[in-house]
């Protein structure tokens, strides 16, 4: 079927690209949406001033970012308190999130060498929750296994101590807060970029035309015929 593919030259394609109307306003909104959802409070405020693009109440981002930052820097207790200040329902209605936060707290205790405190916390706070839910129990056991190793950096569950575990928990909290505020939890820009890759693949079935392969440089390449 390759023979029947329509070939669109660079010149023709550039003409089509030129005919597309993209409103500046829409691009500004897209950028604002990114800044707000990703929590760039100050940048969002500056962008409002510099571009005249409106945004939602920034106070809610500030609170949300404070929670995220607390988890990212290992202050889980602080984070839990802040989430409850924002809206106690978030953790009440989301046992999995609450468990993951407690698990993170346990990880931080182990990281800081507070073995006794960690054991007490695991038995009193986490074990009862594990009984309610098999997957919680498995997570708990994996976490407690950290205590069994002198050199945790080389143990099979060592990844729990990795920074990525904090980030995972932080992004889970972030998403839950956004959902509770009826905001979207993901910015639109990455979806549009994915849609671009998808749309190019789709059009490949029908035509040979200039692609943008490297999205980061937005460079138009000559059609491969």
């Amino acid at each position, binding site marked *: 079927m390759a023979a029947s593919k*329509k070939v669109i030259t660079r010149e023709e394609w550039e003409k089509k690209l030129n005919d597309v109307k993209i409103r500046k306003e829409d691009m500004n909104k897209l950028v604002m949406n990114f800044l707000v959802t990703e929590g760039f409070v100050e940048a969002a405020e500056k962008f409002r001033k510099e571009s005249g693009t409106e945004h939602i109440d920034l106070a809610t981002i500030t609170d949300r970012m404070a929670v995220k930052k607390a988890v990212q820097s290992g202050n889980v207790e602080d984070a839990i308190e802040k989430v409850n200040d924002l809206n106690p329902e978030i953790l009440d209605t989301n046992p999995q999130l609450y468990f993951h936060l407690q698990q993170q707290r346990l990880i931080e205790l182990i990281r800081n060498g507070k073995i006794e405190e960690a054991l007490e916390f695991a038995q009193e706070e986490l074990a009862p929750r594990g009984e309610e839910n098999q997957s919680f129990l498995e997570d708990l056991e994996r976490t407690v296994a950290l205590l069994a190793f002198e050199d945790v950096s080389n143990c099979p569950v060592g990844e729990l101590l990795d920074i990525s575990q904090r980030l995972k928990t932080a992004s889970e909290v972030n998403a839950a807060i956004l959902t509770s505020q009826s905001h979207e939890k993901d910015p639109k820009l*990455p979806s549009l970029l994915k849609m671009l890759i998808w749309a190019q693949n789709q059009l490949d079935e029908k035509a040979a035309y200039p692609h943008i392969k490297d999205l980061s440089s937005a460079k138009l390449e000559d059609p491969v015929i």
Partner: protein
Amino acid sequence: MMSVSNCKKKIEDMKNEDLALYFLQQQIGSNDDDSSVDSSVPTELNTINSSGGFAVVSRDKLSVKYTNVNLHGHDVGVIQSNNPAPTNTMIYYFEIFVKDAGAKGHISIGFTSNNFKMRRQPGWEPNSCGYHGDDGLLYCGHAKGEPFGPTYTSGDIVGAGINYAQRLFFFTKNAQLVGTAYKDNTMNPPLFPTIAVHSLNEEVHVNFGQKPFTFDLKEFEAQERMKQQVKIEEIPLPPNLSYGIVRSYLLHYGYEDTLDSFDMASRSTVPPICIAQENGIDEQEITYALNHRKTLRQLIRDGEIDTAFGKLREWYPQIVEDNTSATCFLLHSQKFIELVRVGALEEAVRYGRTELSTFFGLPVFQDLVKDCVALLAYERPLESSVGYLLKDSQREVVADTVNAMILSTNPNMKESKNCLHSYLERLLRQLTACCLERRSLSGDQGEAFQLQRVLSAGKRA
């Protein structure tokens, strides 16, 4: 002063070089409301092109009854809708209610093409497709059906639809999806919703959407969209790609304060976001004159056009030396608009006479000149049809033009048209062009891509 004809010629000459004209042309037409609605959707049964004699269509053209005794396969009572199914939506759908299955229940629902043989059941002939009530079979272009779903009879509500996104036909019975059938390349629009009756007293009522459907079409459509979205979301992206694109956008348009905050915040996250610097040359291209660009944008956004002119003369005299250039024109017209805004109408008139009148009668400029002058006619210009000129977005257009012109003075800029579009805009153009081209190569079927819809989608009420 130049004569008009000289000036006209000059404009023609510049057309290829004056980047600023681009912004002017973009603006023309952007205020046109192109919400033309295609009105030719199916609304009733077509009584002209139907197999007259075998069946009777009711007065409201929304039901049909077979009033004969059927004798053979060529006396089917087939009725198409008055208009073909619209192709500019993701999904088209209609329903029938079987009032009476008559003697044999030879009822069918489906889609047929323009030149369908109007004495045959939909599905029996090429370029047609139908779900039959008596055997529950699906017929797609052959007299031989395939097992498909349950039979249907008196009291049932049956629906037929086209899912353009998936290139499928789908059928429903009593609000449940029965199944789908591949819509192959021979089944191209125009396709007509079609129903058929073929034994004594069979009676069918059709609903083209004038009444609510029993099938939850909204939910179905939402699910179909979700399916597609899930597939798209699975596509991996290089890390921090979005950050890089946002950053280059801020650089491109000279939003320097935002950029500084953004950079500072990116550095302080855990872990810091590092944006790939492999395209260092491009980076240089867009950091060029950042502070000047920011200052000028600020001035224009604040309505300080005289000061902006002054700064441009000082920093980039080449941009404003030709008083007939599109950039100068946009700045002059903005100055005029700012005077109107503060109510200095007399001054505006004077300014218009000295600075804008030269542009009258020049094709690329005259629309904007006319609109500017029209501002004077209204007591409350903001509420008039030219009120758009008083909005922030007009200042933004002028600021964007000046920004692009400054970028174009960069001696390292390889291609001047790179000044026009940020990376983000190039990507969005590519996305739109791909979607539109694909749609046009598929016979214009399915929903046309609209960035605005994507942007407003997912907002909760």
